[in-house]
């Protein structure tokens, strides 16, 4: 598998860049959670200043190459484009990819490390939030060490997004760029396993927690042990594609973007029939509308108001997924109508593989460190500081409100870095008095 969209050719990029009106105080920039100055970077593509274009992007969004690929641009920049109403919005995402690819493919670094401040910051978790925070702090001259439990950095950008949308190399190139800013990334280091909290607190002037979320929760149905975890399914498709076992008839449980990704790779890697089951209706599904449209075009089938109740199997092999029809009842805690089983409506979806992608567990580190939480997520104040002074957090692990996304994680990492910097600089000034 390779990226769904081919890169823009030089000609396509210039034509598209010239189509941009160069709005003033542009709505695309407002809509972008990291507020990249989009007309400016696009104008630089039009003038042939590609390094300047990439710098404009990366100044606001250090993970601009990932975001160019995985951002739900239809809901953000491109959705706000003034040309969208009666015309086609500018292909902002693909232009951003064009400019950032230009510098990564040529090994051009657009930033330098700042003059050393002597301050040390630990970042826990090398996903987009952590790498952004680390990179921004390094640009400001702080000495940063990132501890990452996995073998490779850049979190879900590396492991959790199908190659069709983002190849592994793109995610790793971003981590390498952060390394070249002087950031030390120590992999296979996990808090509470081979990294002690005391050590972190004692050796660093500030800490940023960007630990993401946990594993896929349990459905609590018989035969669940035979179900494949959606995130591992995607990870295998990226890291060891030849080892990925794809069924002939695959059922994916869930209707979020990860579920769509799982269904997409199953379909593309040979499944004859892929069905997504979701206990609510298409109105409540959390996948973006453009992802849903994409999935339908891929030939993926949908069974709404359907809840799995048992995995049927014979001799260790799945033969079907027993489900029950649902109906929508009164609103539940999330404000959405609660689905209720329709008595006696059980039926079996024949299949030989079941994948579940129904969200992730809340971050376990909150409990480990005794942090205050909000709906199970780490609670932070306006400055991204947790209930422990000097300990900050950002990314999916604090996303109690709104939907988790790479670009929101980047913005958290950036704003937290600035907050940490203000704290450390205040300390330096106090020391100088």
């Amino acid at each position, binding site marked *: 598998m390779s990226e769904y969209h081919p890169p823009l050719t030089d000609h396509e990029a210039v034509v598209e860049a010239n189509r941009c009106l*160069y*709005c*003033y*105080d542009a709505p695309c920039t*407002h*809509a972008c*959670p990291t507020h990249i100055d989009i007309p400016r970077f696009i104008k630089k593509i039009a003038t042939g200043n590609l390094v300047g274009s990439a710098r404009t992007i990366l100044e606001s969004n250090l993970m601009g190459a990932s975001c160019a690929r995985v951002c739900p641009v239809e809901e953000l920049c491109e*959705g706000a484009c003034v*040309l969208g109403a009666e015309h086609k919005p500018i292909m902002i995402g693909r232009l951003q990819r064009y400019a950032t690819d230009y510098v990564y493919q040529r090994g051009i670094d657009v930033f330098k490390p700042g003059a050393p401040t002597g301050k040390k910051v630990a970042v826990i978790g090398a996903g987009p939030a952590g790498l952004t925070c680390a990179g921004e702090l390094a640009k400001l001259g702080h000495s940063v060490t990132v501890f990452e439990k996995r073998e490779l950095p850049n979190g879900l950008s590396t492991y959790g997004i199908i190659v069709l949308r983002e190849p592994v190399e793109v995610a790793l190139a971003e981590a390498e760029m952060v390394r070249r800013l002087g950031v030390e990334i120590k992999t296979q280091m996990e808090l509470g396993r081979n990294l002690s909290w005391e050590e972190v607190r004692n050796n660093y002037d500030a800490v940023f927690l960007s630990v993401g979320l946990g594993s896929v929760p349990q459905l609590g149905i018989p035969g669940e042990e035979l179900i494949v975890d959606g995130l591992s399914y995607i990870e295998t498709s990226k890291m060891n594609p030849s080892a990925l076992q794809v069924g002939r008839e695959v059922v994916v449980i869930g209707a979020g973007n990860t579920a769509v990704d799982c269904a997409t790779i199953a379909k593309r890697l040979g499944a004859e029939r892929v069905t997504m089951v979701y206990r609510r209706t298409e109105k409540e599904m959390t996948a973006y509308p453009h992802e849903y449209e994409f999935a339908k075009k891929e030939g993926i089938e949908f069974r709404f108001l359907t809840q799995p109740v048992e995995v049927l199997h014979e001799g260790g092999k799945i033969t079907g997924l027993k489900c029950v029809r649902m109906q929508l009842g009164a609103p539940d805690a999330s404000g959405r109508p609660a689905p209720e089983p329709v008595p006696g409506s059980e039926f079996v979806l024949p299949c030989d593989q079941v994948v579940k992608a129904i969200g992730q567990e809340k971050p376990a580190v909150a409990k480990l460190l005794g942090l205050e939480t909000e709906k199970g997520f780490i609670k932070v104040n306006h400055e991204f500081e947790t209930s422990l002074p000097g300990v900050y957090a950002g990314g999916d692990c604090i996303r109690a409100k709104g939907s988790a996304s790479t670009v929101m994680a980047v913005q958290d990492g950036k704003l937290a870095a600035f907050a940490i910097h203000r704290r450390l600089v205040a300390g330096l000034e106090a020391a100088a008095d």
Partner: protein
Amino acid sequence: MADLSINFAGIKSPNPFWLASAPPTNSGAQIHRAFEYGWGGAVWKTIGAPVLNVSNRYGAWHYGGQKMLAINNVELISDRPLEVNLREIRDVKRHWPDRAVIVSAMVESTPEAWRDIILKIEDTGADGIELNYGCPHGMSERGMGSAVGQVPEYCQQITQWVMDVAKIPVIVKLTPNVASVVPPARAALAAGANALSLINTINSIIGVDLDTLEIIPNIGGKGGHGGYAGPAVKPIALNLLSSLGVDPVVKQSGVPISGMGGISTWRDAAEFLLLGATSLQVCTAVMHYGYRIIEDLIDGLNAWMDAKGFKTIADVVGKSLPRISDFKDFDLSFRAVARINPDKCIRCNLCYVACNDTAHQCIDLVDASGNLVQPYSYDVRSNGKHEAVSTRPQPVVREEDCVGCRLCHNVCPVDGCIEMVELPSGRPSITWDELTKVRPEVGTDWEAMQRYREEVGIEIH
């Protein structure tokens, strides 16, 4: 269907569109093809003195992703043997009796040389002759082309030599590389020229290659000035054309003018006709897209003439000339202000930044509740298309402060969104000429000007 045929100083053509003397009219085979596409006439690429050409010959100016808004060239007149050209001219004319075949000529400045070439051209059966007094490069270094066109006396002398011999209509082609085209035009008319044509190309250096630092186009490491043409020169051509149209001597002579300089579409063509051209010559647009563009030139012009009720080309020629005026005769009391239609506005804010940075600071950004909003004032933690679109302010013109400069109208990307609306100024109509006749001091003394402004209620912010 309007009648597009013209009779240009006795040269007849089924439509006013002629290929200008240039690479598109280099050979008989090309002109045969052009006539098959429907061109009404062709001015053969200049024949005359022997030349050698160089490469590269054409530079181009591209802007905003648009290719070839202008071209420039250092190509000389025809480098094909004279006899070959003459034979092909004869052949083309024999095949296309209804089309205008005009031959452009340029030879060294002696009566013998001119007499010789005119007789040779007439012998082909061509309909007319165009005297090339315009080439700004190469030939001018040899005392031909614009070296003639820039000096009215030379212009008159050579035209005289030609008129002494010529039995077919003679068109004098003028160079724009002068302070005014009127003196050379009058000189040509004084010598008895049957018609004028303009503009030839404008002297130019198209650019510098930023990789090699070479001049574009690069000729063995060197480069130099060349003739500039194409869509970008149209406004200059229209000005020079109208300067002939309003000149009493030219007007009095009644000679027709062949207009050219950036004509690419029927719209351009109609503007040239309205400002006094009878026939229209096209080059760069054809060099960009080929002869096929004649189809819409004719079709579009026809449709426009039908819509406007013009039955013949003569009905259109010079129709807008009476509106050409000098600044001193403009009505100082005429008032227009910009008005933005919020239903059409896409809120790109290009009008706002243009007005605020570079014009008269009279466009405000206003939110849904009518409050003034400063640009970039949203919370950095807000995002998403709904937030960005729903909170986006609307640009609104403060009409009382608008000077009617029309910049916003010009930058607005949406047709019909920003209209210039005529409002009563409350002042009686008066021109600068009239004002300074009765109150000459306002033109020399700022205090007198201030008193006048206060009197009539002109407030400058």
